[in-house]
């Protein structure tokens, strides 16, 4: 759990000549080994006409390489114990798997073969259908619909407002050439970090990487990062769907980016307002006005956002809206030493508990590295929370006054 990350003579971070990064955090006491390729690219790096291409590529990686057909690749992943998966977000695409320690070589070999997709036309078409089904599945969920609409309003034309899955139209239009071009441009060695955590031999993995990963191509074109400027119109848009029984509402207002020194304090502020024991819970849920109400802080490379919402009876909407706004407006009064210490301890313990198994630690290690460009041990991450003071949380509120909400309400009217 709270393991010493590394002996001091063995730094966890290694850079291959082609720019590919290795993060090795071995723990001889672990029972398993987990590995993941963390690719520094996601939906925000797409052209708008190609929305969904990052996620489509993520699916196609599991369709096999030139050397290994789809079924054989999936069988090898299952031979390892079936603990493999992947996800795509606005800024990252991650492929991960875990295995018993005696299978470390096979784990790394298979995961690496997965990163060399053949992108065969015969595999692309059925997978396109799978993604269209995935889009249809989420399109039925009111909480997802309202969030998609909110992000479109809040971010406007900026690619952080892209839907990760794309739309049926953009996904239908993605050709093999477009997929291949995106893969070549965005999966270059400089964008890729391989993290390995758990019971494995670091010297062996380093030697393996020196053989197998040095030929990983460097991208011809570097992805262009457009600075995040939300449209943030401060509007409240109402969407009507007479088929619904309840109202869903979602809001966004500016926060802080991943590299901001007050990033942890921003998360604490969100917890004071919208956590399980936060002011929104006591004002809205404890009183029975709504059956859910929350607020979280999301951070991106160069910006952040406080996002939250609620669901309620249609006839209570105006009352709940007023109560939600009142809590946001009264945030200053929530920031006391006791409340901050309590929230900080909860966040710190949560950080320690998440790291208890290699698969949990893998995500924190890899995602933090993508976000801030450095390795932070579990202890460091926990300490960053416990060090947060009420003064820092007040400073977050000064920088991000939470007073201009962009909102979307979806309901039967």
């Amino acid at each position, binding site marked *: 759990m709270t393991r010493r990350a590394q002996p001091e003579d063995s730094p966890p971070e290694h850079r291959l000549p082609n720019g590919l990064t290795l993060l090795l955090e071995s723990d001889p006491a672990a029972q398993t080994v987990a590995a993941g390729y963390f690719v520094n690219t996601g939906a925000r790096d797409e052209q708008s006409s190609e929305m969904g291409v990052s996620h489509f590529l993520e699916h196609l990686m599991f369709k096999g390489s030139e050397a290994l057909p789809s079924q054989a690749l999936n*069988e090898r*992943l299952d031979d390892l114990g079936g603990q493999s998966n992947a996800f795509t977000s606005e800024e990252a695409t991650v492929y991960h798997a875990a295995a018993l320690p005696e299978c470390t070589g096979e784990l790394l070999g298979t995961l690496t073969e997965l990163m060399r997709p053949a992108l065969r036309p015969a595999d692309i078409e059925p997978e396109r259908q799978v993604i269209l089904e995935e889009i249809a599945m989420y399109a039925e969920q009111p909480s997802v619909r309202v969030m998609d609409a909110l992000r479109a309003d809040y971010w406007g034309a900026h690619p952080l407002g892209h839907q990760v899955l794309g739309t049926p139209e953009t996904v239908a239009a993605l050709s093999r050439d477009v997929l291949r071009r995106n893969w070549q441009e965005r999966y270059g060695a400089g964008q890729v970090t391989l993290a390995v955590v758990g019971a494995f031999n670091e010297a062996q993995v380093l030697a393996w990487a020196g053989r197998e990963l040095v030929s990983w191509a460097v991208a011809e074109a570097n992805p262009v990062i457009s600075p995040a400027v939300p449209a943030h119109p401060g509007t409240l848009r109402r969407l009507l769907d007479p088929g619904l029984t309840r109202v869903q509402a979602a809001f966004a207002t500016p926060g802080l980016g991943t590299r901001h020194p007050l990033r942890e304090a921003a998360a604490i502020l969100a917890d004071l307002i919208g956590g399980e024991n936060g002011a929104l819970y006591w004002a809205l849920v404890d009183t*029975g006005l709504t*059956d859910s109400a929350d607020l979280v802080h999301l951070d991106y490379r160069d910006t952040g956002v406080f996002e939250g919402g609620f669901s309620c009876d249609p006839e209570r909407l105006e009352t709940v809206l007023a109560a939600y706004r009142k809590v946001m407006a009264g945030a200053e009064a929530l920031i006391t030493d006791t409340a901050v210490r*309590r929230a900080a301890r909860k966040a710190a313990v949560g950080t320690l*508990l998440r790291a208890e*198994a290699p698969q949990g630690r893998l995500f924190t290690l890899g995602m933090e590295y993508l976000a801030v460009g450095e390795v932070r041990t579990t202890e460091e991450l926990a300490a960053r929370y416990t060090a947060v003071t009420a003064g820092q949380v007040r400073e977050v509120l000064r920088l991000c006054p939470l007073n201009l909400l962009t909102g979307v309400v979806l309901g039967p009217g």
Partner: protein
Amino acid sequence: MLCQTATLWTLEGGLRVAFERRPGPGFAFDLRVPVGSAHDPRGQEGSAAVLEEWLFRGAGGRDSRQLQDAFDDLGVRRSGGVGPEATRTGASGLLADLPAALELVADVWTRPVLPQSDLPTLLDLARQDLESLDDSPTDLLALKSRALAFTHAPGDPGSGYAHPTSGTLDGLAQISAASLHRHLEQYGQAGSVLGIVADLPEEDVLALAQRTFAGWRSGQDVQVPARFAPGGRAHLPYPDGEQTHLTLTAPGVDPRSPDWLAWQLALTALSGGSSSRLFMAVREERGLAYSVSASPTVLGGQGFLSVYAGSTPDRAPETLQVVRAELERLSAGLSDDEFRRAHAGLSASVVFGGESLRGRAHALTRDLTLFGRVRGVSGLRAEIDALTPGQVNAFLRRYTPLQDATQVTLGPGAELQSPQRQQVQA
């Protein structure tokens, strides 16, 4: 390493405690009380769910907010909730906080405030929760499926498995403070199991459990029978839906049957990983669905198979046909490769499942409940290692889930047309 074996105690009042010592700075515990939504009194459906919320509205002299703050002061992560057969409360955190966290949970069970003034709010929240199901096609599907597959017979205890955990509108209307106080008498040490994982000497853990739960009432341990009604079919029209959802429920294998592990292995081959039969046939080869799965559930001490897939309406008939064909061809058995792969997956899943403290604490209470014993990680892996292809295939020859399966579909348009009997494709 994973060679620990759990220590079991039965406390004077009947509470069973399963403890596994494990090095590390954290702890986790899981308390399973064998009263769930199936035990709701007939006509008062929703009692267990409302009662669980009510229990957390203050305990041990603390009001609702002070109780929540006390949990947060420890930084613990809480887990639990109400299921069909049990109510669970658990927590995980740092070792030094185990006694305080366990005392808080014990306060909730043994010294709740149960403020009368909060009850109308809790009933209204349950009503909101019920109404939110109308906006969730997959929840509606699961509910219909349960209602179709599991019937209630006169004389059965409780109201059974057909209603949502949140209850029914009629049931909620009949719940009162007095009825909940009466219902709470069922909850106690009888049949309850406390699983604890922590790096502490056995005697300390035993003393802690004895101290914190001394004086908790006996309660009742009554199993609600799961009466499976075979062969039912239903279609729920959902005109605005994007997809047609389908589910099949079929008999499975009871946890205490010698075939249990063979069934688990067969289900791993059917739906365990990305090369499993359902995933390959429905998703990889035909692109018919994003989500398709078959999973085991246990109700009333019996195992059941529950299959789900969702496809856009035009493609749903083919999805249903392919899913049924895969179930049909199970009885022809697994190939050696499939057996080997499913075997590796099942065996590894035991290790992965035991890695997290929370997962292990949950496994302790689950094992005691379902199997009457705790299966150690290495012991269970040895049992899995002993399975042979011949054994699994002999079981599969006898296993014909489609024969009695109930089928529920939900989506735009009319009921899916599919042949009653699918030809074996194998």
